């Protein structure tokens, strides 16, 4: 049952990967030497068996990411989402923005071609959609699972990719720009998701893409742009009690960082 819950949580998690993790600015990690004894490559990766880092190199790389990402207090990033369906000759597009405040406050918002907002903050979760110009709060049955998911996201945002090593095999491509490859361990999970790829920027300072691949060739790619770090973000945009989400435009982040995490308006430590 626990496994089933974990799998279900992981399924919900999928796109949540898109809540852009990003590495710090302290410079790229040392490149690892490619090796034939590299960490296990994802068997279902669409790329032709990309060369991956050795175990030692991967651990060093993830150590560096963990250290750098751990320094980020707040994050805002816009994203373009492309869903590639094998049935369709073109892609399904969406746009949005995501906000993160350490340790576990997240807002994931679709802005085009429709409007939807998911907010998780500590133990509270709220989801809204806008139909006919009117925001509605959606009663959530799976709030517990969403919290599990966002907790997992938060740990990734903190660079703790290895926390889910019981759910995913982790590999990192040897060549730049590096890609973190997460392959679900559970067969049941792989029936839905074959692999998740987090593409890093050339300097490995941020995640620039997140790709979720499904059986049969369908995949979703999120491309992150206009990333801002350590900006002050109003607590209002993370309010989960309201009948409608606070508008982001009214609470545009300022370009100064909060004095300390404890002084962030959202009250998170």
């Amino acid at each position, binding site marked *: 049952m626990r496994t089933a819950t974990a799998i279900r949580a992981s399924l919900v998690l*999928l*796109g949540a990967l*898109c809540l852009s993790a990003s590495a710090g600015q302290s410079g790229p990690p040392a490149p690892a030497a490619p090796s034939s004894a590299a960490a296990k490559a994802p068997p279902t990766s669409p790329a032709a068996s990309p060369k991956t880092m050795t175990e030692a190199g991967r651990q060093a790389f993830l150590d560096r990411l963990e250290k750098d990402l751990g320094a980020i207090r707040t994050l805002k990033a816009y994203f373009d989402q492309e*869903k590639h*369906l094998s*049935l369709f*000759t073109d892609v399904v597009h969406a746009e949005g923005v995501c906000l993160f405040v350490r340790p576990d406050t997240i807002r994931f918002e679709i802005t085009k071609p429709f409007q939807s907002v998911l907010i998780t903050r500590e133990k509270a979760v709220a989801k809204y959609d806008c*139909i006919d110009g009117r925001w509605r709060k959606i009663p959530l049955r799976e709030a517990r699972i969403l919290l599990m998911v966002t907790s997992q996201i938060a740990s990734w945002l903190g660079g703790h990719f290895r926390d889910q090593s019981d759910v995913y095999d982790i590999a990192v491509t040897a060549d730049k720009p590096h890609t973190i490859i997460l392959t679900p361990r559970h067969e049941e999970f792989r029936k*839905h998701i074959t692999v998740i790829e987090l593409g890093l920027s050339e300097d490995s300072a941020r995640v620039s893409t997140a790709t979720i691949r499904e059986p049969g060739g369908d995949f979703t790619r999120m491309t992150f742009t206009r990333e801002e770090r350590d900006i002050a973000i109003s607590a209002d945009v993370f309010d989960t009690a309201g009948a409608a989400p606070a508008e982001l435009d009214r609470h545009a982040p300022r370009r100064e960082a909060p004095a300390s995490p404890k002084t962030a308006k959202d009250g998170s430590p």
Partner: protein
Amino acid sequence: MTAWGEDRDSREARCRSRGAIVFAAGAVLANLLAHGCASVPYDRGVPFQDEALVARLVRAAAEMYPPSLRADQVVALEAGGRRMDHFRVCALARRPDDVRLVAISDFGNTIFDVVRTPGGTRIVKDCPEVPRRWLTEAAARDIAVAYLARPSPQARLVRHDDGTVGLVEDLRGGRCREFIFDPAAGRLTGYIEARGNRLVYRAAFSGYRMAASWPRQVPGAIDVTDFRLDYRLTVQVLDVGARPLDDKVFSERP
């Protein structure tokens, strides 16, 4: 029949004992009594003759969408009185009755995948969180009603007190269906199915606007109520466009 609000895990667990089955049957009956039999009266309207009007409305309905299309929409499902999460539905539809729909979450992952052809409905990818009965009986039907169902030239013309006119056709099993139009604009504003004097299904089309990928005004909103299955579906149409489709699309995996 199962209650809409239960997820599949809980249903399976409940059915492990005979007592649970009896309990479930009671719940089903209660659900039927509380919801399944709910319906509203069917206004049959007043029959009248106007062959030119029939021809105009039939043509308007036929030209409303291309015969083979792709439609993109966001749908919100309320089943058994409980609002569920929304999902984006990408649909491929081809006259007379072929539908393929794929639902995706805000995060982009596929939630479910359903195919409907004259041979029946198949679930290519299932989703435990979505009421199974809606998936098997209603999801593709709703898409077919929205984009494929059209009145025949033999339909009977009726006039309603609110000024709308309808084209009525008999269906099997003592049922009938009616396509409702705003006669002045020549626009389809509703679709209903009735048994006797009671509505069993209703779809309202509103918010007409130009589609990005089809040079005609199409409904921006479709509001579906199924009184028999007890659900309501709110559809926000994002785009519609012509799309040649071959038979492979309506097989399970092209």
